[in-house]
């Protein structure tokens, strides 16, 4: 019995020792926290997408549902996109999405997402998500792969909404789905 306790203790010590280099490696100068990177991607997507009619005023980047960004998204406040000032908003009602140019869908129950999609269908709203359940529904899907942040583009969903992506964005996508 004692031997087994020591054995388990030994294994976990190995894990502890082994985990430290893992953490240390990840903290090397070049590695970036996932959500800080996602915020930067949202900024770049906004730059590389064209909306049909640009009403004057603010460019609204909205987050629907659970917000895992923390302070990283606030850094985008006031940045200039298409000669407009970017505003970061948090919305909880599907109807509020109509005033947004970009909606990032966080951790939300699928039912609420269905309602959101119904409200903004065919409206020029760029939908982005990192939720695997919505991989087919959102226009851009973000995922972590091999320690990099990759993204997929649903070309026909965005076409139906009258949004155009620059060739640079399509080139950098991991995959562009068209039907």
């Amino acid at each position, binding site marked *: *019995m004692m031997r*087994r*306790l020591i*054995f*388990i*203790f030994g*294994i*976990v010590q*190995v*894990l*502890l020792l*082994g*985990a430290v*280099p*893992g*953490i240390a*490696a*990840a*903290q*090397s100068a*070049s*590695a*970036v*926290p*996932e*959500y*800080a*990177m996602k915020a*930067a*991607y949202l*900024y*770049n997507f906004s730059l*590389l997408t064209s909306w049909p009619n640009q009403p004057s005023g603010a460019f609204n980047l909205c987050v629907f549902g659970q917000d*895992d960004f*923390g*302070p990283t998204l606030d*850094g*985008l406040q006031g*940045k200039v996109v298409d000669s407009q000032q970017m505003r970061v908003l948090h919305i*909880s009602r599907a109807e509020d999405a109509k005033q947004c140019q970009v909606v990032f869908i966080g*951790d939300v129950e*699928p*039912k609420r997402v*269905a309602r959101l999609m*119904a409200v903004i*269908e065919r409206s020029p709203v760029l939908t982005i998500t990192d*939720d695997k*359940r919505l991989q087919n529904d959102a226009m851009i899907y973000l995922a*972590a792969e*091999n*320690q*990099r*942040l990759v993204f997929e583009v649903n070309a026909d969903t965005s076409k139906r909404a009258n949004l155009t992506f620059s060739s*640079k*964005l399509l080139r*950098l996508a991991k*995959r562009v*789905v*068209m*039907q």
Partner: protein
Amino acid sequence: MSNKNEAEMRESPPADRARERVRVASSVHRVAKLGFPPNFKRLSFAGLVAAAFVASHVRADDSEMDLTKLPFEQLVNTEIITASKLAKQVSEASSAVSIVTAADIKAYGYRTLDDILQSMRGLSVAQSTANGYSFLGGRGFGGVGDYAGRITLLIDSHSVNESVGGQSFFGANGFLDVELIDRVEYIPGAGSAMYGNGAFLGVINVITKKGRDFDGTQVAQEDGSHQWNKSRLTYGKQLENGLDLLISGSSYSNDGRNATRYQMAGAEERLEREQNHRLFLKASYSEWSLESGWVRRPIYAPISAEYSSDESRFISLTHDARLNQNLRLSLRGTFGEYLFNNTGTDQWGPWFDFSRGRWGGIDAKFVGTWFDNHTLVLGVEHRDDYQLRMVFANPLTDTNRRTESFYVYDDYELRSNVQLNYGLRYERRDNGSEIISPRAAVIFKPWSATVLKFSSGVANRQPTPFEEYVAYIYAGVNSVRTERVQLNEFVWEQRLAPATRLMASLYRYRTDGRTILFDSSYVSQKVFAQGADVEVEHSWDGGSRLKASYAWQDSWNKQGVWMTNSPHHLAKFNFTTPVWGEKLRVGLETQAVSRRLEPTDPQVRFGGYSVTNLTLTSSHAIQGWQASFSVRNVFNRSYSDVVTSDGRNVWLQLSRDFK
């Protein structure tokens, strides 16, 4: 008992051979009893050390750099530290759902669906190496064959239970290689009104990966103890036009497992060989999807016969349509077949058991959002079991049955933090038997990090064709009662920290008319079950994860007698951490089960035991290669369950991707 059997066999005419075949088919075989006390001290020690790890863990600092100043081309090539994330459930349920993801399957070296279920809160799986079946035990059920017909196994939301006995297969006789699984969700209780007759005590929803998750060809080879050997070839891709295709085939064999056979002459050691072949196909394009699977699992020299084989196949076509802005329709057509063969020899010469079920069905599910704050679901299902053939030595039964079902269900958002789910399911068989199963739940979010769920319902279950057949052969009973369970459950989900989740549930079940096929007799009983379980899950930045669960359960019949194979305590612990990125990862798992009664003899108690498994995985240390090395039952504990354990198991898997 064996002397009595011997005497009966000598004097009785061959017609009673049928009774003997059925008795064997529906009962378990005795094994020697070995007792080991449960070792919770070890479990809690491991937990303490894990807690020490948490305390000493250094969190990564947020970068001060303004990434928006860097060119996009540079960002896509920059390494990220993956954020801590908890798995999100896919199944619609108002119970506490247990989730195992593809990352868990890899990290903990799960080889079969049995291994996956064994890690879940409140579930225990007894894997019988003797005749190749595994027995699932959980809330209030645990006797051999108890779960059959009472748990529904779904693959991508359609049921794959076989039609004769309502069994679902989690071992080598199941359809899926675990590498094709994206996640497994277990919904205890009567699931929801949406799942049919067999979803009496729970639903296991297995969601498969898509072709694009493979993005090419994958070849894998496994070798392990007891001459475990498996080869697999998988191709998966999403084409430019959007067609997503996944095709996979595999072949497995496992020689040399000891199977102790207790026959009239005494104990007899024999070696048993198990094999399987599998094919799986999944194609989806736009609003259509097609899925098909085939598995054949022969066993040579199993305990009860000389040769036994299970073969299953299914094909399913689904169409999802958006009829208008407020109405969606999902239409599905399914065909399935199950074939069972069992042959051997006794003093009257060679015999064979055989059963075959063939069925087809059409389901339509409408989802309507016409009313603000309401999501209405209406479903209509038609199922035709057009062939149900059973042969046990002599009497051949050739029958069929048709079932029509209708269900309606509403999700009502009463307030922003209060939701009501309620509905009912109506089923009618062609023999006139009707059942109605209503269910209701309240989901309340007093604060943003807390969810409370109260649910209550009644579920009914028609007897399976096998139950009706056995009841008729033994008790001359022409109609078997419908089982009815009343369930009440309370669930509390709490987000303790951004990546820490706590889930606790309390439940009480009351079953009327529980059909028990006990050692060749048919009994209809009242069974009560109650229990509590708790689970904690935590995830760290950088990819370490921890999950620990404890379940207490008690089940008894009307006479107050403790039900068989229903342990009072079940504890599970899982921890995985990368040691060198994903080039080397460790997964540690411990499961502890307390004492329980032997399924066929309440005088016999199986002792408690705990099992520890350790897995090392390596992903892309060399481009395109993945390797996994696993030791199951590290401490080589000898324990008795439905059959004795097979000691320490070592296993190695190598796979290569061609993209």
